[in-house]
């Protein structure tokens, strides 16, 4: 039909790159919050506190069991209708909230598996030298679990970066939104979305390389 307009693409790159900080900012905020929430959920799942466990199980199941898009729509368009505090929620906040809840459910399972993966004799050795449950968790179990979980958690961070593209559907002008707006003027949709794709690809590739190095490093430092 027509050739690629490379000049247009080249010109678009700095425009889209200008939105990278927003994308990374949303992902980073979501990651930090999700890590905290996931750790709490995971520790609960390990100790299985009565009266709390079923709620945690339900929470994890719901956020793993429904699409992120549906969750975002529910928070941004739906929830303000029934919760007055959320009436003036903006798209970015809703996106971060949605990413946090969605990924914390996944990450909780990863952290839980890593905690339970620590050998039983490690618990017992700690117990026999007289540590409290909390000391054990903090000094013995979590440092080991963190190393096991780290590569998977980095993977979730990568997924989260990709997940920020859904903020676009909440009307946030992030990379996709900006590309859409640009293309609406030029009508060069293919070029615009391709630029977005390539920038995402570059970000993810960089992080994947870092993750691979982390994995190699942890495997080496942590050989048993």
């Amino acid at each position, binding site marked *: 039909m027509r050739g690629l307009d490379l000049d247009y693409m080249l010109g678009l790159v700095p425009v889209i790159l200008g939105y990278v900080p927003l994308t990374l900012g949303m992902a980073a905020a979501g990651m930090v919050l999700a890590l905290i929430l996931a750790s709490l959920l995971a520790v609960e799942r390990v100790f299985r506190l009565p009266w709390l466990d079923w709620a945690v199980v339900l929470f994890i199941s719901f956020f793993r069991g429904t699409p992120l898009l549906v969750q975002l729509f529910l928070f941004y368009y739906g929830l303000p209708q029934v919760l007055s505090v959320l009436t003036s929620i903006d798209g970015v906040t809703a996106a971060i909230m949605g990413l946090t809840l969605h990924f914390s459910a996944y990450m909780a399972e990863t952290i839980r598996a890593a905690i339970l993966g620590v*050998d039983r*004799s*490690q618990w*017992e*050795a700690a*117990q*026999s*030298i*007289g*540590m409290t449950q909390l*000391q054990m968790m903090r*000094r*013995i179990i979590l*440092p*080991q679990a963190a*190393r096991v979980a780290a590569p998977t958690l980095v993977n979730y961070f990568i997924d989260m970066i990709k997940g920020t593209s859904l903020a676009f559907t909440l009307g946030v002008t992030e990379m996709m939104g900006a590309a859409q707006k640009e293309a609406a003027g030029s009508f060069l949709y293919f070029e615009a979305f391709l630029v977005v794709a390539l920038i995402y690809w570059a970000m993810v590739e960089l992080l994947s390389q870092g993750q691979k190095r982390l994995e190699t490093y942890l495997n*080496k*430092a*942590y*050989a*048993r």
Partner: protein
Amino acid sequence: MAEIRLEGIVKEYGALRAIHGVDLQVDDGEFVAFVGPSGCGKSTMLRMIAGLEEISGGRLSIGGRVVNEVEPKGRDVAMVFQDYALYPHMTIRENIGFGLKMRGGKPAEIARRVEEAARILQIGDFLDRKPGQLSGGQRQRVAMGRAIVREPSVFLFDEPLSNLDAKLRVEMRTEIKRLHAMLGTTMIYVTHDQTEAMTLADKVVVLKSGRIVQEGPPMELYNRPNSRFVGEFIGSPQMNILSGILDRSTGTPRLQVGNGALDLGEVPAQDGTRLDVGIRPEHLIWAEGAAPRLSPVVEVYEPLGSDTLAICRFGGHEMTARLAPDIALRRDTAIPLSYDTRDLHYFDGESGARLMAA
């Protein structure tokens, strides 16, 4: 003072009874080995003594104090685990000193005691490495160092050598024996390997299905097993067992086995009794020239260098003789063997219990 007393110790998992009321006395400074096939309850017993497993019934005392309800840390015991249980994220120094640090020891005092433990176990060179950089044998030493540094009154070992290869196992066995000689601390050692139990312990406790079958010094168990089970379990190669019928018709007692017969010594049993007669491989003596008591056929033979094992067939039984390495053997050839009837063991053919003179 760290003698250990078990009185009627019971362990139940729901309706399942794993340990059936065990009584045992471990003296101060004694080295006791629990040995038995897998599932016999030896590890469960150790874990109850360590406080890692609740006691369902009976009384456990350490150093005169009943500790059934005492937390592991309050029992003044240190356990060495089969998989070492080293903390992979800490250096060896931190691993060894961690228990003391958690108890609020002074840094200078901790450092001194870690150095001392490292000296005893010859691991001073690795103190700043991580466990992942050590070999299996070195890790096992560190695990022992972590126990030693706490200066407990009892050491508990849970199959500590079973992850090592054969050669290292023999070396570490000697190390542990030296360690006991040096420290003089009470030690309980769990293993499925009868050689380890025999070579290490002052007293060997043989367990089976949650009960003590026999306890005593190694050589007593070896020379006077109270049952066919202990006879076959202790000793390598295994004791030969010949099952047959006691025949007193010719005056001297004989065992009818297959279509042959074996001379026996004084058996405290009646004519016609079903009997299991045991004889250890080294008690079958080469009887060239003399009149052999039996002439089994060699199926295969295995030269070990210091001895040769002849695996033979006799009266439908397989039997192993330990012979001098310079005897020339041939497959499918009968060999002349004899024995001293005082080296025979007599077990009841039904219950397997040793037959004792009235």
